């Protein structure tokens, strides 16, 4: 599979053209132009996504699957067409392996509560890494607590890279699942998930990948990776919030009990017995976020038209440029210096608390994240309360990094 270091194609990457597709970027905040560098938290939406949702509500809003009328058929078609787009985007074998969720968090909880409750017993072990987001820790902790199973943690080195030898030692006959992030939201590290999956499978252990941060930056091929589950959120890939995807291998999903009960997930219901619908409907109880699904489909069309590899190459250029520029500021300590990194720069600035950095940058138009990034164990590992984090999207330009650098220098002046 491709990495963030994908080769640039000969075709020029017309970032200024792409920027025009995102109406929100063309504005001033606090009287200065907005520099949006909080893409790891959420990305902005192109006009085509906004218009796809708008069109649905203006022209064919209806509930799916149940209506015989025209609008319902149009809505159902758009909803199911998006599923096929997603299938192709991650190269799943079957569109029934694409389950709509509210986001990565719900996808992971779905696996923990269905596959997990059915298959994990007292004494079993689940393996996560030290760089996980809380959403890939807490659902497993809850499961382990319920079942009397044990959560084990793959350690990381000072650069923020997984210790693969330690990982291998931690996979035992008791291990039931490895749940690991593809890209760390707090450090930017790209994990060698192909190696992890291969090793885990050689020991008969399943692997869930948290793809929240990787999906907009790395071309994902779930069949080539051979991962068992892959969860991601739409809003990190220029789609609306409240919609996400859980990919799972068909035979696993098919054997799992349902997650939530309700309409749309049944084949037939009587008070004596309910039979469940086939995949993917079994996991999609209730009226879903139809507009969100349509928006996600439009977002994948948008990203595919540019090309994930080209976006990755552009973001890698920004990462290299930004890392060099920030490294010149002597008070900066970059947290997360893995050899393989996505477009995320987490840093501390002398003794200045990240929240003070965030406030002062905001006043200069620069939107970054400050805090523990829902990864408190990572902060603990590096013995810091929080970091400031700049993260790049397909529309960012080097000039914005220059503004960031100037804004950081101004922050240092305030606290001088």
């Amino acid at each position, binding site marked *: 599979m491709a990495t963030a270091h994908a080769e640039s194609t000969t075709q020029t990457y017309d970032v200024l053209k792409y920027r025009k597709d995102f109406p929100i970027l063309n504005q001033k905040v606090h009287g200065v132009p907005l520099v949006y560098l909080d893409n790891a938290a959420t990305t902005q939406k192109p006009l085509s996504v906004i218009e796809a949702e708008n069109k649905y509500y203006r022209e064919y809003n209806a509930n799916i699957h149940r209506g015989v009328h025209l609008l319902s058929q149009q809505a159902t078609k758009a909803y199911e067409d998006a599923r096929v787009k997603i299938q192709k985007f991650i190269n799943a074998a079957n569109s029934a392996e694409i389950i709509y969720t509210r986001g990565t968090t719900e996808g992971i909880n779905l696996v923990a509560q269905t596959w997990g409750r059915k298959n994990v017993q007292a004494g079993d072990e689940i393996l996560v890494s030290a760089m996980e987001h809380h959403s890939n820790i807490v659902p497993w902790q809850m499961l382990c607590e319920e079942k009397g199973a044990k959560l084990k943690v793959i350690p990381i080195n000072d650069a923020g890279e997984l210790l693969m030898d330690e990982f291998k030692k931690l996979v035992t006959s008791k291990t039931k699942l490895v749940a690991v992030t593809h890209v760390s939201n707090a450090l930017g590290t790209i994990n060698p998930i192909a190696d992890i999956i291969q090793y885990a499978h050689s020991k008969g252990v399943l692997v869930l990948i948290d793809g929240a941060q990787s999906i907009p930056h790395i071309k994902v091929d779930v069949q080539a990776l051979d991962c068992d589950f892959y969860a991601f959120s739409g809003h990190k890939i220029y789609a609306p919030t409240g919609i996400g995807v859980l990919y799972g291998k068909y035979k696993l999903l098919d054997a799992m009990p349902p997650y939530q009960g309700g309409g749309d997930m049944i084949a037939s219901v009587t008070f004596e017995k309910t039979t469940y619908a086939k995949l993917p409907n079994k996991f999609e109880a209730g009226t879903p976020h139809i507009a969100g699904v349509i928006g996600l489909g439009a977002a994948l069309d948008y990203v595919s038209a540019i090309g994930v590899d080209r976006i990755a190459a552009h973001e890698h250029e920004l990462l290299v440029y930004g890392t060099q520029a920030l490294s010149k500021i002597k008070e900066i300590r970059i947290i997360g210096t893995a050899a393989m990194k996505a477009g995320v720069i987490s840093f501390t600035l002398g003794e200045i*608390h990240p929240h003070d950095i965030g406030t*002062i940058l905001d006043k*200069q138009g620069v939107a970054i994240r*400050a805090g*523990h990034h829902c990864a408190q164990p990572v902060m603990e590992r590096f013995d810091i*309360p*929080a970091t400031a984090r700049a993260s790049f999207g397909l529309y960012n330009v080097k000039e914005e990094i220059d503004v960031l650098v100037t804004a950081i220098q101004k922050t240092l002046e*305030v606290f001088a």
Partner: protein
Amino acid sequence: MSDFSDLYQDLILDHQKNPRNFGEMTDANHHADGYNPLCGDKLTLYLKLDDAGTIQDIHFKGSGCAISKASASMMTVALKGKKTAEAEHLFHEFHDMVMGKIEKAPEDLGKLKVFEGVKDYPARVKCASLAWHTMEAALHNEKDVVSTDDGKGMEG
């Protein structure tokens, strides 16, 4: 270029750099822990009250942003020697000021009025008020860690 002096005033920067009454207190008879999960600000507040309800001594320790540290430092300076009733009164005035609930900061807040600008930074109100909530908890000898996100509607 924007100006930051509405929030980061010299007095605030001075207190964050050189916090007063900073460090553990061995002869405290009241103390409480405060935590702001949003920022990770943590502080412990120590009080020594006499029988007449006067704050004889007050200290704090912990880590946090400039606003939370300066607020804690300036609070200890303001409250030393005050009666607990006065401390409660100042707590409510300070709280109303940073929440923007009152037009003009009350005069008896004295130097604490320097935090008036916080009301224009909704994300930072909790930073300024953490020390005060923790002080209030210490007065009442509450055992639980004071959290600015405890679901009790403690908005600031």
